């Protein structure tokens, strides 16, 4: 009985202790499992953890120590020596912390890489912003530029309307001025016609004046000539008067009527005595007026025919011409002819008066 009581008491005392040991074992398993998992995790990222090889190795070593400690302190029934548990936990926790260190270092590297990547993107983005800002500015300026003409268009439109109105008014004015101009052109044309007419008149008048002046000059000349002729005639007349023969003026000149007997004796047909004086005076007269022409015409009358007919009077005219040339008269200016009995001046009874010599001086006035 006593033995039974002792065994039961021992069992009762053992129970809580075993429960605590099992609980600690579970906790240890969990910690170990966690440490193993963490170490495996960082080992799987060996390519990344190369720079932190020492930390990785440290974690591994702590895990190994924990495993070794655990193994050493676990009996054949799988029971872990209670005294060793804190050390095992310590190593497992150390392995876990070292894994966290490694992970933290990895994370730091990742963050730095990410930061570096992001920092590279910043200037790129800023450059893009700058470009687009510049574009936006440009667009704004263009918009402003576009807006400006709209405002300007309004004022231009107003100006255009005013200009159109002004144009209409000016068109009317131009039309009015055109009409006025046409009227004025007509008036000017009419005035030009008048002016032309007046100009023609002036030309005509001028011409007439010039003609009149010419005529006046000519008349003056004519008057002078006439005066000279008259003076000449007067001079000749005075010279002729000195010859003491009958004389008369006619339209062509001056005719001297000289009794035939004073110049020629018939029937002898010779120069009469005393005729030299008359012939001399006539010759002097012809020399004084060398342009003057002298026509000697001898007239007969009655009988006998041999001294009175035309032939006889022509002979007598020739004799007189010869005498006059001999006395100094120019032969070229002297013509001689016989008239016979065809032109008596007086009645039949005045025989000797009808027998005469007429000397006509011509070209006196024409000179």
């Amino acid at each position, binding site marked *: 009985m006593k033995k039974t009581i*002792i065994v039961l008491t021992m069992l009762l*005392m053992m129970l809580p202790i075993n429960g605590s040991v099992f609980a600690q074992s579970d906790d240890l398993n969990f910690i170990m499992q966690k440490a193993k998992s963490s170490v495996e995790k960082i080992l799987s990222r060996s390519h990344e953890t190369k720079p932190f090889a020492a930390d990785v190795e440290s974690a591994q070593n702590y895990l190994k120590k924990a495993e070794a400690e655990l193994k050493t302190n676990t009996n054949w029934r799988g029971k872990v020596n209670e005294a060793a548990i804190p050390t095992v936990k310590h190593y497992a926790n150390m392995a876990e912390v070292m894994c*966290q260190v490694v992970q*933290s270092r990895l994370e*730091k590297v990742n963050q730095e890489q990410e930061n570096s990547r992001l920092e590279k993107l910043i200037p790129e*983005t800023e450059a893009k912003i700058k470009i687009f*800002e510049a574009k936006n500015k440009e667009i704004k300026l263009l918009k402003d530029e576009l807006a400006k003409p709209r405002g300007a268009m309004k004022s231009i439109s107003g100006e255009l309307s005013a200009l159109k109105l002004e144009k209409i008014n000016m068109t009317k004015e131009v039309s009015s001025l055109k009409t006025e101009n046409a009227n004025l052109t007509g008036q000017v044309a009419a005035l030009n016609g008048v002016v032309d007419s007046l100009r023609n008149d002036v030309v005509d008048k001028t011409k007439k004046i010039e003609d009149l002046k010419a005529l006046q000059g000519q008349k003056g000349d004519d008057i002078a000539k006439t005066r000279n002729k008259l003076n000449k005639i007067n001079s000749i007349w005075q010279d002729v008067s000195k010859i003491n023969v009958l004389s008369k003026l006619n339209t062509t000149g001056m005719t001297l009527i000289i009794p035939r007997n004073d110049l020629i004796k018939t029937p002898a047909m010779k120069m009469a005595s005393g005729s030299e004086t008359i012939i001399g005076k006539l010759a002097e007269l012809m020399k004084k007026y060398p342009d003057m022409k002298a026509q000697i015409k001898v007239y007969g009358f009655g009988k006998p025919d041999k001294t009175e007919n035309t032939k006889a009077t022509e002979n007598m005219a020739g004799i007189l011409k010869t005498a006059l040339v001999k006395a100094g008269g120019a032969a070229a200016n002297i013509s001689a002819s016989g008239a016979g009995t065809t032109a008596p001046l007086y009645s039949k009874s005045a025989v000797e008066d009808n027998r005469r010599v007429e000397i006509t001086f011509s070209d006196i006035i024409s000179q």
Partner: protein
Amino acid sequence: MKKSIIMISLFLSAATGIPSAFAQNISQATVDQLLKTKAALAALAQTKANIYSKDILDEARTSITKAQERIDAKKEKAALESLEMAQTLMNYARVKSEEREAAEKTAVTRAKLEKLQKNLEDILSGKEGAQ
């Protein structure tokens, strides 16, 4: 009966253990290591690690406290383990701090980039004032 009492006593002693029976003297090196670890923790607490990895530093601080307690309890091996853990945690705190700082830097860069990208998207989509 006496035998039973003695056996029970022996069993209980074996089951619960008598730490004092295994207590040993703590070496000066361990004490020095504790002091150095404390100083290192204090120095680390003045760095960015106190901002970025305060949780880990707290864990390290707890480990140091545990080490101190173990030293006080004359458990040198356990104290050394706690100190080792504290130092590893401090290293982890430094590394984590660098990682978080890098992450924060990346986040700032990403935020800046995202802002620029949004700005760019706005410009491209023709939003007014997107400059």
